[in-house]
């Protein structure tokens, strides 16, 4: 039985790889700087559409962290996103106008690019509104983490997506280009997350936070998944299955300890809820290119028009990673 299951997962993994291979034709290189990638470089992969305003801070954040090279898939932007990216010295940009949904929300594209370029590299796969926080990130670059993971023979690093929001209506303070989004959206929910184990893939399924509280209080099973495994020592045999929520082979999903201990883990601060979100969610609803018939965006639109303030008196104000560690939203594990 177990053998059968692992064989099925193996077939599934191969299917996703073939699919990624076929989807390579969607992509055309707008600016290819992959020749300058060094053997030990840490790579970042991201799919985006019309996120010009977010880019300067995003690039700065991850450059400061120690990411060496960026890969972007520009899905039909018309706001100068592609041009801006092509101008960066450490960025490779691919362009496509094909459907985001048909590429399984970008997973196929990134799987292909990783298959081709990321073998043997530590790889970070994030959205343009996700900002990685790991233990000691204020004093140690990401290379310190990956070196430590290497020395510990750990191949993947687990995080939780932590939704950040402003106090007051989401669109009350406009986000400026280059600004730290967490100057505006610096509140989060500290203790309302629920976890289930996905038996098939071995990953945890985490839900909760302000989105579950405000938009999905009557249909919690539809609340978005918050478990993410964004940092992986990539091998060309690996594939992401659904966003960065889970991977194959399934051993990579085991980023948690089952015997009472805590494995080193981080958070992805989610800067989704800025003023840009309101128009974006209306647009995304129209495009219908998002997960599960965009029901997430439908819920947002209903929720946003009814009560756009996610803040409550028990919201926690973000200070630093140590605060998240104490609150139990991430863990140092045995990294000291």
């Amino acid at each position, binding site marked *: 039985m177990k053998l059968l299951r692992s064989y099925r997962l193996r077939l599934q993994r191969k299917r996703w790889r073939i699919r990624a291979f076929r989807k390579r034709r969607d992509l055309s290189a707008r600016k290819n700087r992959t020749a300058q990638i060094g053997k030990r470089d840490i790579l970042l992969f991201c799919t985006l559409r019309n996120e010009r305003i977010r880019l300067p801070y995003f690039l700065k954040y991850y450059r400061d962290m120690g990411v060496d090279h960026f890969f972007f898939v520009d899905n039909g932007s018309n706001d100068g996103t592609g041009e801006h990216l092509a101008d960066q010295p450490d960025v490779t940009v691919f362009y496509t106008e094909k459907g985001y949904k048909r590429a399984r929300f970008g997973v196929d594209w990134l799987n292909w690019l990783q298959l081709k370029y990321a073998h043997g590299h530590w790889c970070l796969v994030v959205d343009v509104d996700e900002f990685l926080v790991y233990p000691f990130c204020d004093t140690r670059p990401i290379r310190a983490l990956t070196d430590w993971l290497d020395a510990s023979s750990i191949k993947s690093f687990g995080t939780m997506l932590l939704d950040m929001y402003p106090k007051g209506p989401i669109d009350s303070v406009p986000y400026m280009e280059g600004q730290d989004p967490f100057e505006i959206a610096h509140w989060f929910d500290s203790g309302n997350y629920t976890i289930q184990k996905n038996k098939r893939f071995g990953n945890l399924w985490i839900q909760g936070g302000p989105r579950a509280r405000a938009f999905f209080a*009557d249909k*919690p099973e539809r609340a978005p998944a918050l478990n993410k495994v964004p940092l992986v020592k990539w091998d060309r045999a690996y594939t992401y299955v659904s966003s960065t929520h889970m991977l194959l082979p399934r051993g990579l999903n085991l980023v948690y300890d089952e015997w009472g201990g805590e494995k080193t883990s981080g958070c992805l601060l989610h800067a989704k809820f800025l003023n840009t979100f309101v128009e974006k969610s209306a647009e995304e609803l129209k495009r219908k290119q998002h997960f599960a018939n965009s029901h997430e965006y439908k819920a947002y639109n209903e929720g946003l028009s009814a009560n756009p303030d996610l803040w409550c008196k028990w919201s926690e104000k973000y200070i630093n990673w140590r605060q998240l560690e104490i609150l139990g*939203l991430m863990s140092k594990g045995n990294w*000291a």
Partner: protein
Amino acid sequence: MSVGFVMLVHEALDRAAQVARHWAEHGKPVVIHVDQRVGSDDYRHMTSKLEDLQNVRFSKRHACEWGNWSIVGATQSACELLLEHETDVRHVFLISGSCMPLRSPSELQSYLDERPRTDFIESVTTDEVDWTVGGLDQERFTLRFPFSWKKHRRLFDRYVEFQRRINFKRKIPDGIVPHLGSQWWCLTRQTLTAILEDPRRAEYDRYFRRVWIPDESYFQTLARLYSTQIESRSLTLSKFDFQGKPHVFYDDHLQLLRRSDCFVARKIWPQAEKLYREFLITDQSPSKMAEPNPLKIDRLFSRATERRTRGRAGLYMQGRYPNEGWENGKTAGRYSVFQGFAELFEDFGPWLARRTGNRVHGNLFAKDRVHFANDETVYNGALSDSADLRDYNPGAFLTNLIWNTRGEHQCFQFGPKDAQKIGKFIAADRNATVSVIAGAWAIPLFHSNRNFADIRREAAQLQRIEARHLELLRDGQTKARVSIWSLAEFIEDPMENLQQILDELGGDAGRRLTEVPLMADLSGFGQFLQNLKNQGMSPHLMGDFPVIDDPQKTSGGQRPYLVK
């Protein structure tokens, strides 16, 4: 007289060269052994960088594999080279390329000058060792290890198992007692030359060649033969985690390292710019002569190990999701569940909060919504009062609540009208204290102004639910502390019973009860039960009430009992 260094290098050659230069420029001779597996370009680059220093030498290169004799071989030849060319050297200090001096060379020198005959080498017998990983201590010396532990773990393990089964034992050479200890030592010329020039060295070498991880036992064992004065500790601060892998120091450890007063620390992350900048300067300050004191660092690392192996009780997150039974505590702290009390006493919640200072919630698991204390709609940690969200994962709801309110004691009401799914979790939780007045759910029905047929139907349903719940609580698997009274038992001596509950809650322990919550009026309750019986329902959980009034005077019932 001087101290000389033997440095074993296999990675981060630039950093190693930097440290070697530091020692050499302070007049301390260094012999460097570079692993054969390092590429020749890198090796040449390193040698050329140190060309200008007369007292830096490179020894014959061995291909070093972890856990294997080659490291001892490399150490031997490097030591011989050092002792031969630097006749002035009295202490030989073995360091690695990722070691960093924390105190100035002159401080180390004067420390050693004061102890000219002392060998600093951690050397303990296998009986006293508790830090070996994989459980091999005495067996390191008596089994054979032809397979690589890193590359062929399974073969390694199987072969060990096989030898155990056939009771295979190697003979330990006469006259030596196996000792183990840190690989990093500082020996005197006398001891070291005695080991290297021993007439039986060929025999010892032959034996240790097949010992598992000989770099932790060769010098540690042989030093015992010759040393006149062994200090069984290493001058190198080196900590290992629970997997036996060395902890790494980063820039943010600067203050900690400085205050440790250790002489040398490993391993340093090669890119810890600040550490290399701060510690590799020529220090003119007078020496402190302080003893090394790595206590703070020990604590830091043992806390890390604790976190990794036991974790924080009651926490569930992306890095910790224990299997059933491995939680070390299903919840983060003690809490109390009261069933039937709010029905029997009209102001039980506020009274309990007043008496104990604890947070007292209403029915957290009520079907309409979560009744938090003070009727809040959102609670600590931004927990929502939505019943749907709570029922989606009631266990997570409860563990979240207890985790979010660490340091407070939570009390809440529970009853057969509530969502029952959580019952199993609470029963299995050591942190739960459950007090039940069975059958008290009938009191609100008794006081209600409803059609008797409806009352009867609901009574039957509630009784069925509560009976099932009590069964769960009385189950042999139950870990919670459970007290169950029937309603009739409880009202025999309510004061005493409440006192008992308060005593268990702690807080104002010792103080006698001065104020009792207001008890519901039960006159006619016996008749009410009789009516239910007459209508074909059999109310039994509440115990026996006489049809003729005044329950206060009923006597001869059982005392309250403590199930667990």
